[in-house]
């Protein structure tokens, strides 16, 4: 259509187009501070021209739909970085709490307590019969045990807190997944009608971004506009408007593992590779248990393990000639059974101790005979081993001279041998071979374990029962055992005999520091990356008020001009009418 009415139409279309431009600019300005908002632009294009007698005649402008200014690649990068950021953020905060447990900066931590414990043994060595020194040592030992247990016990609440965080996060992930599913539905419906669902897409992008802080995700968009979200191992979290639900199940350690609700007995902990979940799971299940293990090892090292138990099987299961070996650094022995006069000496090397048993003997009798044989053979002569029978058929062999009880070459039937961690080291071992103020052989100095929450100075120990004397019973001036125990401080007892207790503990604290530092640095790095990418995204998609002002004026002028066009056309028409 052409002619003067055509001009009027052109004016009207222009008015509408410029108004659309002002509307979009207004939407942008309104959302200048909305998180996740992507600025929109209106695309103006000429309308289809008409063919007139003088050729093509333009018919004005139309506003196409508004579009988001968006770089999808940056969005994916942000999601990836967010996974790492979430992971290190979680680790950093958790590890900083671990760090406070090892508070050594003020010279009042476990390191000092250990030092005071060993020093107290030296004080005792200076005056082995002194009651003050004995009481001081007892006090220091109790403090040591208490501090170790107390420090150790601070880990569990931390793990429990992380466990709660993990469970809560699983719920949040489910909510976000549902949200994304809902938005997918809305976008499919809207875009099926041919329009861009810009604001729904913004909301969905934001949801995915938040989701990527919590767990590792990959996303891909389908032609329908629906965004599918998978975990990095390929399992689907959101597919169209359908979502899979995550859940938790109790694991052996008493904490919760992440599972799919559809497969509630298979833990997927190990396949989670990013996000806060990864960070928390790692701290709860790997890092803290390792620190706990280190502390247990340290305490076990200090305690030492001195006795090895041999369980004698029922006598009827012992056939003649069976044997087990015990050894000390100087001499190797083996104990073999002669049943009713039958059975031959296995002669595996070393000195044989023959134990005559009868087929009718009970296990307890066999144990007792074994103990007697070992005692007769060795204990009286050169005090290599100390044997005792507990609980009927259990034989305890404590080596008096450093050494260990080794597994037998032929331990298949009849008796089993539990191997000691280390034959003769640590405070308990030395304490047991010493003598107390009354000339009685010392017992265990420490008892219990950290894991059992009962590590303490043995309840039998009082000030007179501390075994400072190393030789003759009842020699109150003998300090040799106190010296031997004090010197454990500098002995290489840990890490396969390469480190002292102090070395071991110090490197433990150092390790914690390094872990926190590493987590902090990774966190800083990924924060910088995310903020860089966010800036880049903002640079493309963010609203600039200056720009919007320019656009506003641009559209305003266009609108004014279009109005002028209409009023001019109106005048033209009036002129035309007046001619009639």
């Amino acid at each position, binding site marked *: 259509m052409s002619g003067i009415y055509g001009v009027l139409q052109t004016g009207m279309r222009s008015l509408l187009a410029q108004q659309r431009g002002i509307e979009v600019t207004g939407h942008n300005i309104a959302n200048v501070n909305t998180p996740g908002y992507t600025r929109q632009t209106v695309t103006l294009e000429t309308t289809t021209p008409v063919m007139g007698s003088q050729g093509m005649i333009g018919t004005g402008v139309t506003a196409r739909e508004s579009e988001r200014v968006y770089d999808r690649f940056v969005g994916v990068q942000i999601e990836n970085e967010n996974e790492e950021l979430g992971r290190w953020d979680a680790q950093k905060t958790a590890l900083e709490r671990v760090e406070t447990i090892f508070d050594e900066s003020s010279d009042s931590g476990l390191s000092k307590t250990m030092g005071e414990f060993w020093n107290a043994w*030296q004080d005792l060595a*200076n*005056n082995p019969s002194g009651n003050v020194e004995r009481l001081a040592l007892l006090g220091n030992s109790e403090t040591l045990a208490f501090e170790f247990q107390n420090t150790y016990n601070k880990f569990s609440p931390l793990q429990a807190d992380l466990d709660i965080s993990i469970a809560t996060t699983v719920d949040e992930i489910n909510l976000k997944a549902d949200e994304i599913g809902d938005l997918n539905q809305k976008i499919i419906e809207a875009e099926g009608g041919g329009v861009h669902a810009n604001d729904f897409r913004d909301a969905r992008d934001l949801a995915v971004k938040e989701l990527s802080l919590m767990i590792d995700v990959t996303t891909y968009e389908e032609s329908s506009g629906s965004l599918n979200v998978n975990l990095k191992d390929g399992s689907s979290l959101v597919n169209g408007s359908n979502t899979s639900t995550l859940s938790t199940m109790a694991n052996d350690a008493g904490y919760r593992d992440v599972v799919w609700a559809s497969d509630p007995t298979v833990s997927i902990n190990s396949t989670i590779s990013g996000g806060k979940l990864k960070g928390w799971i790692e701290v709860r299940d790997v890092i803290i248990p390792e620190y706990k293990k280190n502390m247990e090892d340290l305490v076990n090292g200090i305690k030492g393990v001195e006795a090895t138990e041999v369980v004698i099987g029922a006598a009827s299961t012992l056939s003649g000639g069976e044997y087990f070996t015990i050894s000390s650094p100087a001499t190797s022995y083996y104990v073999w059974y002669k049943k009713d006069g039958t059975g031959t000496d296995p002669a595996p090397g070393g000195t044989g101790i023959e134990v005559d048993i009868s087929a009718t003997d009970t296990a307890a009798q066999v144990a007792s005979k074994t103990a007697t044989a070992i005692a007769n053979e060795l204990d009286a002569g050169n005090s290599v081993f100390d044997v005792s029978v507990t609980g009927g058929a259990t034989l305890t062999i404590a080596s008096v001279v450093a050494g260990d009880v080794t597994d037998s070459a032929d331990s298949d039937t009849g008796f089993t041998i539990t191997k000691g961690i280390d034959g003769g080291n640590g405070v308990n071992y030395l304490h047991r071979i010493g003598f107390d103020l009354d000339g009685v052989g010392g017992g265990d100095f420490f008892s219990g374990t950290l894991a059992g929450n009962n590590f303490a100075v043995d309840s039998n120990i009082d000030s007179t029962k501390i075994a400072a004397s190393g030789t003759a019973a009842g020699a109150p001036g003998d300090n040799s055992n106190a010296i031997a125990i*004090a010197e454990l401080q*500098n002995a290489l007892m840990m890490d396969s005999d390469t480190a002292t207790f102090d070395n071991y503990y110090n490197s433990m*604290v150092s390790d914690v520091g390094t*872990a926190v530092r590493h987590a902090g640095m990774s966190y800083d790095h990924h924060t910088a990356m995310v903020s860089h990418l966010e800036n880049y995204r903002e640079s493309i998609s963010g609203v600039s008020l200056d*720009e919007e002002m320019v656009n506003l004026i641009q559209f305003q002028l266009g609108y004014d001009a279009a109005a002028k066009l209409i009023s001019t056309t109106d005048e033209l028409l009036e002129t035309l009418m007046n001619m009639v």
Partner: protein
Amino acid sequence: MRVSNRQMVNIVKSDLFRNAEQLLKAEERVATRKLINRPSDDPIGMGKVLDYRKTISSIDQYTNNIVAAKSRTEFTDTLLENLYDLLDQAKRVAIEHSNELDPELRQGAAQQVEGIYDQILGIANTQYDGNYLFAGHDTDTIPFPRDEVTTGAESTLSGGESFNIGSSTTDYYVWYDIDDGSTDPAIAGRTGIEIDIASGDTAAQVAVATRNAIDAEADFSGGGSDSAVTITSGGEGVEIIDNNSGFSFQNATYNGDSEKINIIVGEGAQVRINLTGNDVFTGVGVTNGTNVFDDLKALKDALEAEPFVASAVSDQTDNLAKGVNQVEGAAVRQSITYKRLETTENHWDKFKNSVVDMLSKIEDADLATAIVELQAQETAYEAALATAAKMFNRKSLIDFL
């Protein structure tokens, strides 16, 4: 590049946070005056700090051990000096009286020797910090218990024989009534303890009867075995005077052992700090050693002996000279110990200084540097604030439309 409004806000925020964080760290360093406030501030440094602290704590303990040992050694040394003087004095008495013809003077000399004997016994039984110094490991047993009396063979006891025992508070005498036929010697100023024996009694039976009778008196307790009677009283020296033949005044015997007492002076380093009764007094295990109590007893007996045998006295002169050497040898050992303790202590003193120094270098913030750093961070923070303020005060296009 396009700059959006949120971009500006984000950048300003993160700059402010970063500056504030650094400012806080700088403030913490000034406030605590430490570079390492938590392990993560410097993990390797923290490890070293703990190591140095442990070293310092150990050095302090070694120094404590050494100080205690030094004072014990000094104390022992004083005792050895006294002992040396006493033995020397006894030796001179022996030399001076080896040809003494006057029995009275010899008797006086014998008493002097007995006095020296008692003083040396006192030294031998000295306690230090509640423990007997010269007892080896048997530090709670008196190493040279007092006075033992042996009863003679029964046939040599005639009725009415007696010996005196006394403490600083009460004097007693013990007398024997054989088959109810003897008379109480009734020693003036003393209380009599009567012991009924039969002429057929063995020496052991007599000893048992004597012990039981002495035990019955609250001030004394009797011990011993077979035909020996040991008399002790609660902490007091017991004087025993042999009134007749048939009893003999016995020497102090050593009750301690030869075990050594070490103290820790360093990692794996120990120093022996004790001398046993054998080292100093009985001479057991000492090259060219002698039992000084035996010597003094022999000297006393020789001086008292009738008839007087001059060679018996001069024999003891030689023995006492050995005794003097023995004490000298012990004193030399103590001074070597002392020297070693002192050297070690000096070494630890110096070493501690350098460890403290190293610790301080790693752990302590140099206050001047820390304050300058704080100042710099403050300036940076203020600059960031000023920039932020400027940015937001800047006019936008709106102001000009």
